[in-house]
C-alpha cells in the first residue's frame, strides 16, 4: 500500500515521524482524511481527535490547537498537545476536568472564563478519546 511521510510535532517533542497510510483529523471546518497523493493543503485544527494509520493499524489520539499541512509528499500535523489514546491517564483527565469546572465557577472575567472553558474542552476531549481506544 502506498504511504506518505508524516511528521507530528508539538512544542515538547516529535511523537511521530515516518511513513503512514492515512491520517484522519478534525479540522475547524470538519473531518478530513488525508491519503497519499493529496494536493498541497493547509487547515487549522482545534481541540479534538486524530487517527493515524500505519501498517494497516490505526491509533487514535487526542490533539489540541494547531494545523495540518500537506506540502509535496510531506504531511505535517503541528499541534500544541498530542496524546495517544492508550497513553492518556484517565484519572488525571478526570481530575483536570473537575479542576476546569471549578475554574469556570471562580472565573472573574471573560478571559479567565474562556481559558477555563478551553481547559474543560481539552479534558473532555481526552476522556472521549481514551474511552474509544
Amino acid at each position, binding site marked *: 500500500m502506498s504511504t506518505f511521510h508524516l511528521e507530528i510535532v508539538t512544542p515538547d517533542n516529535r511523537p511521530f515521524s515516518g511513513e503512514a497510510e492515512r491520517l484522519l483529523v478534525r479540522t475547524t471546518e470538519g473531518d478530513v482524511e488525508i491519503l497519499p497523493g493529496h494536493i498541497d493543503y*493547509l487547515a487549522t485544527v482545534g481541540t479534538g481527535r486524530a487517527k493515524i494509520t500505519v501498517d494497516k493499524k490505526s491509533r487514535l489520539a487526542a490533539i489540541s490547537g494547531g494545523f495540518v499541512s500537506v506540502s509535496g509528499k510531506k504531511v505535517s500535523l503541528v499541534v500544541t498537545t498530542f496524546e495517544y489514546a492508550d497513553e492518556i491517564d484517565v484519572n488525571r483527565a478526570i481530575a483536570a476536568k473537575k479542576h476546569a469546572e471549578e475554574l469556570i465557577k471562580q472565573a472573574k472575567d471573560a478571559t479567565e472564563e474562556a481559558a477555563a472553558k478551553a481547559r474543560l474542552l481539552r479534558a473532555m476531549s481526552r476522556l472521549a478519546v481514551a474511552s474509544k481506544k
Partner: protein
Amino acid sequence: MAAATMNDIKARMKSVKNTMQITKAMELVATSKLRRAKERAENSRPYQTALFEAISDIRTYSATAESVFAEKRENPKTCYIVVAGDRGLAGGFNNNVFKLTALLEERIGGSSCYLPIGRKSLEHFSKPGNEIVSEEFSSLQSLGVSNALAIGKLVVTLFLEKKIDRVEIVYTNFVSILSQVPDHKTLLPFAPLDENAVENAKMQRPYEPVYEGKPEEMLASIVPDYLGGSIYIAVCESFASECGARRTAMNSANKNASEMIDNLTLRYNRARQAIITQEITEIVSGAEAL
C-alpha cells in the same frame, strides 16, 4: 600571640571550605540543569520551524492576509519581552540582557513597555514610570509550553488592538558551555517577504495550495502559536545560558577558593613552625640557665 594567629587562620580556612562546598554543589546543579534545558530547546525547534514554514506559505500566496501582521507603524510603541534569570550568582548573565535592552530602546526609539520573564527581569523593570504588560511570568525555570503560548496570544492580541506596535524579545543565546551571547529578535511586525524567495516558491509550486478556510483567519490562529513557540525556545536557550554562566562563575569561585586554602595552609604551617621554634628556644635557654 602566635597561637591566636593560628586560630584565626584555622577559622578562615573553615569558612572558605564551607563556601567552596556550596559553590561546588551549585556548579554540579547548574551542569545537570543545563543539559536538560538544552534538550528542551532542541525538542521544540521542529515545532517552531513547521509553524514558520506554514506562515511563510500563506504569506507567499495571499498578500492581503499578511498585511495585518507585517504592518509597520510610525513612532512605534515597542513591547520588550526580556528574558533574564531567577537568581544572581551567574556572572554578567542578567546584566548583559538589560544592557542590550537599553541599547535596543535607543536604536528603535518611540515608547516602550515591558514583559519581563524571570524574577531578576521583573525586579529590574519594576520601576516607577515603567509600563509592565504582565507580572505573571516571574519564574524562568518553571515557565512551560503553556505559559509561552499564553504570552504569544497576549502579545498578538495587543498588537492587533494597536496597543503595541512592535514586539522584541531579548534573550541569551546558548552558543556553548563557555559562551553565551545576549541576542534579540523582532517577533512582530513580520519582516517583508523577500521577493526573490516568493518568485522561487511560486516557480516550484505554480498553483495555490488548498486552504480550508480564509487565509486571514488561518494566519490569525497560527501566528500566536508561532510566537509562543519562538518564546519557548528563547526561554529554554536563556535558561541553558543562565546555567552555563552560573557554572562558569562557580567554577572560577571554586578555583579561587582552593587557591585561598593553599595560601592559608602555608601561613598556618609557618605560624605553627614559628611556635615550635620559639618553644625550643625557650626550653634550650631555660636548660642553659640551670
